[in-house]
């Protein structure tokens, strides 16, 4: 549960990004970044804006050149291959459909760019449009389509050339929530059927969790952790990952004693216990996933004053009054009523569920 020496990377190597560094106007965006994706994997780059995830995507696509390092595809270096010869398709944020072309012409673009004659693209275009259930819209203008339809056309346009790799830059961000969830399920099934290797860039953790086999959480140009969604959630390797993926109770504290691998941590709300190899005197961040907390006494117990009880349908969130950057959050299944603001209650959880990170700086 300490800062990892290096992030976990994939075992099989279809796409390899090795030691890549990039600076814009002297400002370092990323340095010495390694990233490996296996064939047929659906992977997400997840992080806040400015973390370098879009830059990494653009470097893989060949739209931005790296200052240092290599990009390999199936063992072959493509670092110096121009973007239009990489056969890596991109679905852009807002889709970047060509406004002067019809739906069918947009989809046929990749084939035409590869020199295929106009009158021979028909069957492939029809097949691609069928795949995304847009065959009835072939002759429409793209401006006449809704956001979801535009996204389908963008996907058909990207897949018709049978790319070796599909990159998607915030593909769902322009859609409303309901449609977003439908499109995620649909797209994932489509990519699985075709055994497509795909990398999604997103700042939305639900989206990343929903569509990917593995998620690379990025922060300030580094990959903090690269793992399956369940691992990220249950065993975040850094405080950043814990914070960025899912919700948590999060407290600042200081280690006062270490005995048999168990830490005693002093917080503003009392002394708590955790595990790890942090020296005495170190400042730490302590975290617990909210559904692992019970509103009753446990191995670790906090006295909490209720700030709010939010009924979310399938669960109820209990927010405690906390200071500074701390957060006190407990989730109980189902609907709980009758919990008024100001109620005193206890948050209890086990030592094993306590995540401890040495604070930076």
């Amino acid at each position, binding site marked *: 549960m300490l800062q990892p020496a290096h992030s976990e990377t994939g075992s099989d190597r279809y796409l390899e990004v090795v030691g890549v560094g990039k600076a814009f106007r002297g400002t370092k965006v990323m340095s010495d970044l390694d990233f490996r994706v296996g064939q047929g994997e659906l992977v997400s780059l997840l992080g806040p804006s400015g973390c370098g995830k879009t830059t990494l995507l653009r470097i893989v696509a060949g739209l931005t050149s790296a200052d240092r390092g290599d990009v390999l595809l199936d063992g072959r270096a493509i670092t110096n291959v121009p973007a239009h010869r990489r056969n890596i398709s991109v679905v852009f944020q807002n889709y970047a459909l060509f406004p002067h072309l019809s739906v069918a012409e947009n989809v046929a673009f*990749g084939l035409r760019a590869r020199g295929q004659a106009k009158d021979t693209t028909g069957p492939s275009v029809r097949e691609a449009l069928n795949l995304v259930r847009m065959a009835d819209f072939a002759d429409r203008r793209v401006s006449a389509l809704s956001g979801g339809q535009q996204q389908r056309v963008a996907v058909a*346009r990207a897949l018709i050339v049978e790319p070796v790799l599909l990159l998607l830059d915030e593909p769902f961000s322009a859609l409303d929530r309901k449609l977003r969830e439908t499109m995620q399920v649909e797209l994932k099934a489509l990519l699985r059927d075709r055994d497509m290797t795909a990398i999604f860039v997103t700042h939305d953790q639900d989206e990343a969790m929903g569509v990917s086999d593995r998620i690379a959480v990025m922060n300030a140009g580094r990959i903090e952790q690269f793992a399956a969604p369940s691992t990220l959630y249950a065993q975040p390797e850094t405080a950043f990952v814990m914070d960025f993926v899912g919700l948590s109770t999060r407290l600042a504290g200081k280690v006062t004693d270490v005995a048999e691998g168990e830490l005693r941590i002093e917080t503003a709300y009392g002394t708590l216990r955790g595990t790890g190899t942090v020296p005495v005197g170190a400042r730490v961040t302590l975290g617990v996933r909210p559904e692992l907390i019970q509103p009753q006494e446990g191995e670790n117990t906090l006295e909490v004053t209720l700030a709010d009880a939010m009924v979310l349908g399938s669960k109820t969130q209990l927010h405690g009054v906390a200071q500074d950057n701390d957060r006190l959050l407990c989730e109980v299944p189902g609907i709980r009523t009758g919990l008024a603001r100001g109620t005193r209650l206890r948050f209890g959880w086990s030592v094993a569920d306590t995540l401890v990170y040495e604070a930076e700086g």
Partner: protein
Amino acid sequence: MRARGDRIGFLAVPGLAFLAVIYALPLVLLLFRAAQIDGQVSFAEYRLFFTDQYNLNVLWRTLRVAFLTTLLALIIAYPTAIAMARARGIWLSLFLVAMVLPMSVGVVVKAFAWSILFRTRGVLNDILMSLGITEMPIRMLFTETALIIGAANVFLPFMVLPIYAVMRTMDGRLPEAAVTLGAGPYFRFFHVTLPLSLPGVVAGCAFVFSLAISMYVIPSLIVGEQQQTLSMMIARSFLYLRNEALGATISSVLLIIAVAVVLGSSLLAARLGGQR
């Protein structure tokens, strides 16, 4: 809201009134002058104009010069507009100043400048001779080529700026999308950049063509009287020949061409614009 919108329309009244008195009224008078003889409505003047081979030659030359000027301006302006659309900061300012500043220099000054460059012992001939490309000075001034080069220079901003304006608003991810779909530089240009910039090209061509077809000062100073254009004929009819009917007739021919260009180009622009 509707009443208020109607009242806002009144703001256009001073401008419209000014145009009506200063521009529309004399124009109507002029058109009437061309279509009547001794108080009778007649198209005899037009018949006379179109049966004279000399007039047809002038008409043809005017159209040819305007067309070639537009073409030359387009060839020079298009790459310039691309560079401007990609320029940022100080470079963009430099480009814009370079486009706009020459417009504040009178057209007479620019035409004279070209005549200095083009004349027999002018700058261009000196350079050509010192490089040994030619032994004798080449006759450049008083030629149609000189006129086209000079006119394209003067009207260049009117071609660059509309194309630049369209390119500036173009979504930068469209060429990138084309690249990731396997489009090389040529395919990208002819299937994405060029079609998307066409509305700007049409507007620029309409501007330059209508300016070039009616230019007077530039041909007067660069080619002189030997090779007349319609505008020069109009001036001569009114000022020297005192033949108002002929002048009015040529004026309306010129006007019809200009109106056709403006209408045609706005229809074309609307069609191209309607696709997006």
